[in-house]
């Protein structure tokens, strides 16, 4: 007989969390080892019980990339299932891009969630069948956007890339000027040019584009390359 699956269930709403855990255990034979209500306690508890599967409900999915990254660093890393209350293509896309191994849409109720936990614990990737096509299309579209953004990044001058990298780090115009030892007016000129080249309308949009397309590392390498 195989060992039972060790499940950690992460959900902010206590009543809902307890109800789901009880139903999984008594109606569907899935034992929840521990329930948690925030990211930090989930990491700690998943590590403590050597979780096989961590189920993250959408209430805790705002910082999903960082959440999944920290779970992946555990030894052994648990499998990650994002659970939703209704099918949401954008949430599915975000979950898979963040590094989750599966997504349960809630459309099949508690039995669907129990089945998803069982499948994911066996090493399968879980995606609701009718949502797989939209998911693949979404991933392809994001990849195309990233490729276009990468092309635009290459068109920036080394100085503009440095300014962009500092902008992504959260610095404002004066902070960038202080780091680069140039005037705030010069920074503004660089910013105006790089926004035009990146075909975005605002600094926030530029930062969001870099974050969304995963270009932060590439930007860092380009800046390091131009500095050496």
């Amino acid at each position, binding site marked *: 007989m195989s060992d039972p699956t060790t499940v950690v269930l992460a959900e902010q709403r206590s009543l809902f969390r307890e109800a789901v855990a009880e139903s999984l255990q008594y109606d569907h034979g899935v034992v929840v080892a521990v329930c948690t209500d925030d990211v930090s306690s989930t990491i700690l508890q998943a590590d403590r019980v050597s979780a096989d599967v961590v189920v993250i409900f959408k209430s805790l999915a705002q910082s999903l990339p960082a959440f999944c990254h920290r779970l992946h660093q555990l030894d052994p890393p648990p499998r990650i299932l994002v659970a939703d209350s209704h099918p949401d293509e954008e949430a599915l896309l975000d979950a*898979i891009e963040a590094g989750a191994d599966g997504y349960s849409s809630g459309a099949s109720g508690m039995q669907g969630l129990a089945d998803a936990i069982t499948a994911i614990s066996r090493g399968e*990737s879980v*995606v609701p*069948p*009718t949502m*797989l*096509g*939209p*998911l*693949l*299309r979404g*991933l*392809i579209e994001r*990849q*195309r956007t990233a490729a276009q953004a990468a092309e635009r990044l290459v068109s920036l001058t080394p100085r503009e890339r440095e300014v962009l990298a500092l902008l992504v780090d959260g610095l404002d115009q004066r902070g960038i000027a202080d780091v680069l030892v140039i005037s705030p007016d010069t920074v503004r000129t660089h910013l105006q040019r790089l926004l035009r080249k990146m075909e975005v309308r605002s600094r926030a949009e530029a930062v969001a584009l870099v974050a969304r397309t995963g270009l932060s590392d590439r930007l860092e390498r380009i800046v390091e390359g131009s500095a050496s």
Partner: protein
Amino acid sequence: MTMQLGRLPVRRSDILLADEDTGSLLIDTELGTTHRLNPAARAVWELCDGTTTLGELVDAICQVFAVPHEVARRDVATTLEQLQHAGLVSWSSPDRTDH
């Protein structure tokens, strides 16, 4: 069939897609035939839109299912071959090139 380099798969627009509890069906109303699809084949069918390259499709499948690139490429090619054999998919001249 062989993968047609530089060409893009396009599904027939007059085919109906129906989802059931046990899987999905493609219904050819012209010939009165049906074809059962598993979830992966259903997704491939949906992406035969005349703009998606084989390479893009394979990359996305690898990202979701964490399978080796060659395995995904072979499975997608087999699915497309079966869809084309059934007369459900054809190949278009591309604006985009395969990679």
